[in-house]
């Protein structure tokens, strides 16, 4: 790995070198390192289109890292990764993609991740997107996360994209069985002329299933963001989605919520708030000695923390 690749790896996966446990590191279209553990098997698909990750039932406190690095300009790839998480297991999966584009051609990585979460299994899924490089070529990421959760299973997803990605459309779909739950926390910051679209769709098919989707975003400069969330309550269930955005400069943010109750005992809530930084927040921090710009930074950093 060279210095650029190492830096990206640290940004997207928080790791400095080869991680412990199971991992697959993909760089410029090829796997440059792979390790399975006793309980976690990582198997490349025969046609080279991605990997399968099999986690044995009852696997606890183990992690899987599958970072992706793109440092060649003009590379355009779609990868299909499938995760099979055995029942009663409790694991952390760290994915993420970083693009370093110094060239003039667009670089694009579209990761299609499908999760099959077994009965009573818990998954913490952390996904970070990052872009850098001063070329004119765009950095494009269009991840799809498709989640199927069986009875009593849980998925907690943290998705972060702070700066650097020029265009992104993120689609997350979840289907929940009885007592299954999904929590998604999205943090997003766009600047320049970036465009980010987020689309959540959750089907709560099972009794006592629940979904909680929380998006916090900051749109700076002339960037644009669109937040769509569709929550369908098809049984006795509880769903909540929340979109909270700060706009600055000439940015624009749209929040398009849709909640549908198809069952008498479905309880669904959507909250959305978009606005600039409140004047009294700035004033308060300025009375503590910060300049207006420093106050703004504190507020944005706190908001996306």
């Amino acid at each position, binding site marked *: 790995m060279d210095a650029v690749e190492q830096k990206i790896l640290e940004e997207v996966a928080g790791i400095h070198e080869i991680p412990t446990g199971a991992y697959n590191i993909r760089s410029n279209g090829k796997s440059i390192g792979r390790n399975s553990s006793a309980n976690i098997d990582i198997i490349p698909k025969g046609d080279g289109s991605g990997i399968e990750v099999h986690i044995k039932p009852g696997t606890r406190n183990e992690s899987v890292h599958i970072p992706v690095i793109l440092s060649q300009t003009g590379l355009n790839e779609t990868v299909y990764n499938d995760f099979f998480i055995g029942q009663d297991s409790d694991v952390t999966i760290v994915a993420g993609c970083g693009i370093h584009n110094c060239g003039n051609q667009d670089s694009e990585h579209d990761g299609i991740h499908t999760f099959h979460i077994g009965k009573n299994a818990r998954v913490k899924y952390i996904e970070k997107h990052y872009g850098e490089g001063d070329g004119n070529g765009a950095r494009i990421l269009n991840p799809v996360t498709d989640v199927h959760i069986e009875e009593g299973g849980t998925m907690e997803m943290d998705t972060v994209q702070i700066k650097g990605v020029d265009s992104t459309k993120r689609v997350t779909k979840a289907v929940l069985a009885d007592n299954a739950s999904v929590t998604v926390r999205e943090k997003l910051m766009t600047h320049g002329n970036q465009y980010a679209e987020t689309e959540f769709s959750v089907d709560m098919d099972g009794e006592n299933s629940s979904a909680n989707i929380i998006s916090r975003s900051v749109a700076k400069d002339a960037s644009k963001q669109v937040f769509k969330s569709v929550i369908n309550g098809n049984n006795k269930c509880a769903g909540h989605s929340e979109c909270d955005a700060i706009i600055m400069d000439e940015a624009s943010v749209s929040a398009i919520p849709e909640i549908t109750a198809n069952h008498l005992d479905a309880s669904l809530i959507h909250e959305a708030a978009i606005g600039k930084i*409140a004047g*009294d927040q700035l004033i308060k921090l*300025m009375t*503590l*000695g*910060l300049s207006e710009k420093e106050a703004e930074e504190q507020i944005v950093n*706190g*908001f996306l923390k």
Partner: protein
Amino acid sequence: MLELKNISFDVQDENDHESKGILKNVSLTIEDQKFIVITGPNGGGKSTMAKIIAGIEKPTSGQILLDGKDITDLDITERAKEGISFAFQQPVRFKGITVRDLINIASGEKLSTGQACKYLSEVGLCARDYIDREVNASLSGGELKRIEIATVLARGTKISVFDEPEAGIDLWSFHNLIKVFEKLHDQTNGSIVIISHQERILNIADKIVVIADGEVVQTGKKDEILPELLSGTGSCKYYGEEE
């Protein structure tokens, strides 16, 4: 020493666009290490005066001197750096910023947990329970008020201005709040200016200033002013909305 000289503050009436004087040629001196309480009826101009001291509002005319230096044209940040602190009547809520963050910003350095907690303990909050909480809507009005006061304590500046610290506080919290100010009065090295309607706060003042209808109508020692205020028409306790 903070001196307000001939301060006037006018606003345009929304209906008839007539200019209306909120403060009319007010002069006031805040001596070093004094505990001064400004009181008077709602709408009299007290909060405006506090905001003018902190630089949140600019006076239409007049001059503000801090230790002889003209600070009239300094903005909020510059005045904060010169040594003026301001506790809001309605503390601001933030998303994601924690009590620890605010106290660190206020003190101007990264404090250890022990140091940061000291300020919370001083305002009667069990520090461990609060230090990492977000300063958001999950905190009650009384808790927010005390955190607001803690940020001013953490700054430890020459001049601390508190705008109606008792407003919106329940009786139980109020009892604790009085203790905080009593302690502050005993221990402080700077000057304290409190805008208040509360007899118990007036009672610990070195000097009481009564502002009504945009003018200073009375200034004097507690012993001179307080009996008159309490025996006057009705009461000095103007519980009510902010100005």
